[in-house]
């Protein structure tokens, strides 16, 4: 039957593309291609090569899919795939790529950019071409330098401006004396030797234009600054011209033999270094073990509590004749209708240890005010309570629907056999329920495993774990720890390690998801359905 359908379907697919729809298709495709070419050219001039690449791939796929009849079904999803490639697949590939690099603070540049930046660093050579100098100063504290080179030729130098030959009458230069030094420069007054030598600013001022700056080296000499590092492309080393130290590139940082490192470093492939650090680094292990344990506990407990409460509520009101049934359900649904961000912030306010309503009430009622935000255990409990509030209405809805689908005669049969209500629940209701709700429990687990919004908005991972080498808190789960590593700053962003952890998380939740399908036979259903 299925095979016959399949064949018939294909034939009809072909016949369904009439002449007019063919023309329309070709015209639209041509318009798209014109746009794509224009876009790629613009992207190319902007040096946005990633966009060039992705737009190219997308344009190619579009043309293949819309011209070849055998790709007819894919046409229906082409736009969706375009957005998926751009904003889902590419970012995932990006994360995977970053996981194998040292990308992060101090390693943000490419190697070329880092070398260029290092080559901008200058030093004042102790020897080499020198000028005799005379300093001038304005009332406002601007300086100018009158230089005389080895040949006796004079120059006028001001900060940030190119050197000009010193000629009397030009640039406000007055008459030159016998030493080729002017008596005055318009707006400037000459500093005598003593004043110049004792001037604190003068040795720090860079005269002349950038790249060829001149600095005062001694009371008698000024000299042009030279690049501190000489780059040798062949051996990929930088040599410090002042000390003679040689720096070689080691995992994204130019390092000398005695361990000195040059800043900035650059992005480099570090292989599995980030993963090794994740699993073995002793400074990370302390907080990480705690975070992982709490992560699993949090996700498991969240699912169990929300499911249990949702189920109990659904069971209690699973009675068509129950009075006010609709009203009760509507009121119980309210938590589900409020955007989580708002809910979480409201609870944060209510659980404020000094000012919140819950603590005021508890203080008055039992004389104890739980330190929800400052103590690790209480903070965890608070998070579970908030998540329970957020999550149970969903399971109430789902389970009350699923309960309806359990055939009633099973219960009648059980009653005849003398099963108590308790037995009926454990032996009939729960197992049958789990068959249909099971996948949603797993989905809820994977969602909560990465429930960044809750942890971040409610408590930002706090209270902090004392003595952790990176920023980590007692309620941090892996994904909020990743956020700390990558964006929160403090001790410097480490995108490489953060990406590596992201991939570890993906492997964990991905495996769980795949397992689920294995046991619920969802894949088979996909294949055989209809």
């Amino acid at each position, binding site marked *: 039957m299925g095979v016959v359908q399949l064949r018939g379907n294909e034939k009809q697919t072909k016949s369904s593309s009439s002449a007019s729809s063919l023309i329309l298709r070709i015209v639209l495709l041509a318009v798209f291609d014109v746009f794509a070419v224009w876009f790629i050219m613009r992207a190319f001039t902007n040096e946005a090569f990633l966009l060039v690449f992705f737009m190219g791939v997308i344009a190619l796929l579009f043309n293949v899919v819309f011209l070849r009849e055998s790709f007819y079904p894919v046409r229906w999803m082409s736009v*969706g795939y375009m957005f998926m490639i751009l*904003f*889902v697949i590419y970012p995932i590939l990006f994360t995977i790529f970053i996981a194998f690099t040292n990308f992060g603070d101090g390693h943000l540049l490419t190697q070329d950019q880092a070398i260029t930046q290092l080559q901008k660093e200058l030093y004042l050579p102790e020897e080499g071409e020198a000028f005799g100098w005379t300093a001038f100063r304005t009332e406002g504290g601007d300086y100018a330098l009158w230089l005389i080179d080895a040949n006796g030729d004079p120059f006028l130098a001001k900060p940030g401006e190119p050197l000009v030959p010193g000629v009397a009458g030009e640039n406000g230069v007055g008459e030159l004396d016998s030493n080729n030094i002017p008596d005055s420069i318009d707006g400037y007054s000459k500093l005598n030797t003593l004043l110049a030598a004792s001037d604190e600013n003068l040795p720090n001022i860079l005269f002349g234009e950038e790249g060829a700056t001149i600095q005062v080296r001694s009371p008698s000499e000024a000299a042009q600054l030279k690049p501190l590092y000489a780059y040798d492309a062949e051996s990929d080393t930088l040599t410090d011209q002042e000390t003679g130290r040689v720096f070689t590139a080691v995992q994204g940082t130019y390092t000398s033999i005695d361990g000195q490192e040059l800043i900035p470093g650059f992005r480099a492939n570090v292989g599995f270094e980030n993963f090794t650090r994740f699993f073995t680094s002793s400074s990370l292990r302390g907080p990480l073990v705690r975070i992982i344990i709490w992560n699993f506990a949090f996700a498991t407990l969240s699912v169990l509590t929300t499911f249990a409460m949702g189920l109990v509520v659904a069971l209690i009101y699973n009675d068509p004749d129950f009075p006010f049934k609709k009203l009760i359900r509507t009121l119980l649904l309210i938590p589900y209708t409020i955007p989580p961000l708002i809910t979480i912030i409201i609870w944060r306010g209510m659980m404020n240890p000094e*000012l919140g309503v819950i603590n005021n009430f508890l203080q008055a009622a039992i004389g104890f005010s739980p330190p929800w935000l400052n103590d690790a255990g209480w903070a965890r409990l608070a998070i579970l309570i908030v998540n329970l509030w957020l999550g149970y209405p969903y399971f109430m809805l789902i389970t009350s629907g699923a309960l309806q689908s359990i055939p009633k005669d099973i219960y009648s049969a059980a009653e005849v056999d003398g099963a108590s209500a308790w037995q*009926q629940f454990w032996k009939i209701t729960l197992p049958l329920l789990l068959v*249909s709700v099971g996948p949603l429990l797993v989905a809820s687990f994977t969602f909560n495993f990465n429930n960044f919004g809750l942890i971040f908005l409610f408590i930002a991972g706090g209270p902090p774990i004392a003595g952790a080498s990176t920023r980590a808190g007692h309620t941090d789960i892996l994904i909020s720890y990743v956020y700390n590593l990558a964006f929160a700053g403090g001790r410097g962003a480490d995108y490489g390690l953060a990406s590596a952890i992201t991939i570890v998380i993906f492997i964990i939740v991905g495996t769980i998801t795949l397992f689920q399908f294995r046991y619920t036979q969802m894949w088979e259903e996909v294949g055989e359905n209809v």
Partner: protein
Amino acid sequence: MSSSAIDTTPQKQDGGFFDKLRNSKSFRYRVSVGIRLIIALFLIFFSVFPVIWVFSASINPIATLAGQTLIPENASFANYTELFSSEVFPYWRWFWNSIKIASISTVLSLSITTLAAYAFSRFRFQGRTNMLKVILLIQVFPGLLAIVAVFLMISDLGDIIPFFGLDTHAGLILVYMGGAMGINIWLMKGFFDTIPRAIDESAMVDGASHWQIFTRLLLPLMRPILIVIGILSFIGTYGDFILARVLLKSTEQYTLMVGLQIFTAGQFAQKWGQFSAGALIGALPIMIIYLSLQDYIVGGLTTGAVKG
């Protein structure tokens, strides 16, 4: 009475008058309903209290967290007027931004999802199951770091077409479209699968094209699931703050969630009353949609669940 099926009151074996009473069906039923009503009151209290509390805060002229009492003295709408007239927090602007972005995203992503789900349900082609698997597996990838890549891409895109750049709503909507090929495809495909193919086939015999079958025959039948997925996706977009916060920079462009989150940074306890007013109004659209269409949503969610 189906109550006997899921009777949670434990059965005891006593003797005498009370035993008789207990074993009388109508009496037991009334007691159980009474107990359940009391439980319901507690549950409702748990569920509704934060909302009442926030409402009370919003009409309390003492706008701080510390000064709040359940029934405020001198209740007034001062917090509301203050919030709506604030120059620093363009509340209605944020509100409008959120509604606009969520509506456009919902319509667009619903179109993408429905088209793809139709193909997944009605055609048999190579790689079909694998595509469905990949779509689902991708959903569990933690996208937090991927935001860096999205940010860079939108920034590059804005250099070419400024309309879609950083700090634009169009750019943000574009990124939301990336999620259109997601878990909703499964839900929607499941619903398509429940519509008998005999309907399509008879139409095909009459010479209808796939496009005609899709738009004229199946879409009207899909109305319930379209409403459910539409609402879910509206809620998701409306409530998002991570992507919006990364991509939108200027106060004018913020969505409500970003605005409210920024609002609470800093001296949170001092602005409690205003935050409450803003949060309550912000939650209202979804609450209204949800509660008025709850039968639809419950139906849609549970069919999805029961189908597994």
